[in-house]
């Protein structure tokens, strides 16, 4: 097992309960692991939530963390995967002065080439949305910075795995 640090995406399926976020984040805190990003949302199963957590650590340690997460009463199952085993995206929003859209023809090209989407335009500003890999967002940010960005924000990673995560089957065994 690799003892080198690498990026892992952790998927945690849980009951939808108040307080679990605290319990899960405390596990990382105790081991001094910095969470790169964290996203929580409903999952494909009704009433079941999914946490997607990105961390950089060794495989030996992530196994231990997964064990601690699964130990929590309301956690149904936790998995970890490397980047090759997942399909993942993040999303970014850029707020930019409206006048630039007309005065700087370059910007129009950047938008087109980066496949970004204009979400809204008004007299003061327009908002660009771009989903993709982190590097694509970093590149876009760099290109737009030249003109000035009023606000920028990026979401946590969301991911699905290439291999199946058999939560429904697992829940069935719990129900019996």
């Amino acid at each position, binding site marked *: 097992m690799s003892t080198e640090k690498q990026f892992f995406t952790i998927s945690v399926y*849980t*009951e939808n*309960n*108040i*307080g679990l976020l*605290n*319990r899960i984040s*405390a596990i990382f805190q*105790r081991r001094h692991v910095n969470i790169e990003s964290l996203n929580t949302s409903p999952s494909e199963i009704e009433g079941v939530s999914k946490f997607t957590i990105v961390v950089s650590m060794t495989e030996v340690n992530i*196994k*231990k963390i997964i*064990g*601690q997460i*699964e*130990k929590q*009463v*309301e*956690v*149904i199952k936790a998995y970890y995967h490397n980047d090759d085993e997942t399909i993942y995206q993040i999303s970014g929003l850029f707020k930019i002065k409206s006048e630039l859209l007309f005065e700087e023809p370059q910007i129009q090209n950047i938008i087109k080439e980066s496949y970004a989407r204009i979400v809204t335009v008004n007299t003061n500003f327009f908002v660009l949305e771009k989903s993709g890999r982190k590097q694509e967002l970093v590149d876009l940010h760099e290109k737009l910075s030249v003109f000035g960005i009023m606000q920028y924000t990026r979401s946590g990673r969301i991911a699905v795995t290439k291999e199946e995560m058999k939560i429904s089957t697992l*829940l069935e065994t*719990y*129900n019996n």
Partner: protein
Amino acid sequence: METQTIKNKETSKKATERISGSEAIVRCLIEEDIKIIYGYPGGAIMPVYDELYKYQDKIHHVLTRHEQGATHSAQGFARISGKVGVAIATSGPGATNLITGIADAQIDSTPMVCITGQVPSHLLGSDAFQETDIVGISTPVTKWNCQVTKAADIPAALAKAFYIARSGRPGPVLVDITKDAQFEEFDFSYEKCTKVRSYVPVPKTNVKSIEAAAKLINEAKKPFVVWGQGVILSEAEEAFKAVIEKAGIPSAWTILGASAIPTKHPLNVGMVGMHGNYAPNVLTNECDVLIAIGMRFDDRVTGKLDEYATQAKVIHFEIDPSEVDKNVKTDVAVLGDAKASLEAILPLINENSHTEWCQKFADLYAIEYEKVIKNDIHPTKEGLTMGEVINQINIESKGEAAIVSDVGQHQMIACRYAEFNKTKSNITSGGLGTMGFGLPAAIGAKMAAPDREVVSISGDGGYQMTIQELGTIFQQKAAVKVVVLNNEFLGMVRQWQQLFFDKRYASTEMTNPNFVAIAEGYYIKAKKVTKREELAAAVKEMMESKEAYFLEVCVEKEGNVFPMVPSGASVSDVRLE
């Protein structure tokens, strides 16, 4: 552990009744067969106390003198009975005072349910008087916790709490209940919880792992068992004894594993770890198969990890999958309940005696006896030793007493020398090492097992951390025997200062009060012993007393506990002096 949904017929047949949330809380406790609870009242839990007044004949509430005392008493109760201990407190300071005991119960896997009152729900989050986020505060130290803001949710929350606390690897849970939920009326009915979706208290045992473990044990030339509290928690004592006797394996215990088999059992080779016995520590690094049963390789047990039993194949019997490979890499992990696993492996293992290997333990014991034990329990030089006091208690109790120790040198000495014939007899704070644990824990133990002799052993330091519980002893007429080994020092810290900080005794010397007068102030019979000649008679008088009894023994001021594995050293570098 039963995990099927079995409708509790009796309760589900009962017609529902309209009662208040606070009455429901008490009724839930009755449904869970709780007869004793420990606690302290206050504004946010008063409705519950009012109901306890009404149900006095069913539930005995013990007013401790501090909420920490309530949790430790509940722990002592749980540890000796194997049942869930219950502690209750009001919101804010009452709730935060529970935390030390909860943390202690969490790391020592003690089943406990704590119920706290909370400010009315419309005030939550407003910094109201005595509001504190106890759910947030207790999250890292509970197995599970929740807040209830509606009366109708109380029965399910408490049923779940009891189930989680006692099932699988036991632990503390906390249920925080707002005051409005305590007042609100609803249609009460109770159904015991037998399952929580997503929670697997006992992992499935893989038959292959049992076979693999048996094969390793059968092929071993120098097998060695280290067992922990898991053996006691799963009530696997008989199966455990059968396995080690059949295979002839020398076996040592972690501090919380003590008493699972009798001290004098020929295969019981003593305690492992920092102040453990010489032979098991040294031979850990010589065995070829290390069989860990219901223990978690705490660093006080393993010493330097990368030099711990590296030559051995490791088998780990464990109920909590996250403990496997956490500290020590295993070759075979047998997941599951220790009792079931040991019963399953028994027919697969061969009879053996490992005479030569066992002799090695005996030889090293002889060295330890000459260098340490003899001087500890039969000293000839001036100054009473802690060891001779424990020895005297052994003589009077004949190994039948439950020994509840606090934390420090006296704890290590008590665990090393106390004699146990019965399981669940060594009650001490292992993982957290909580000073102040001993006295209140002894109260809980005595109340859970009134027929047993319960002896609490504390140092002068830890004793003063919860000394107020003498009031509880007096009020409850709990016939606890309280021994304080007074060395006028925070002995264990002083020992480290002596050995590793050039004898710079910074803030470890204690000027102590008149302990006898304090005990007498609480109307408890008391005696102080300063000379060897007085010891035997005083211990005898204490043990024969039908009531609580306080005995202070002034021991040598700078006695040390050996053997010792200095922290960070390898267990085989254990020092005898």
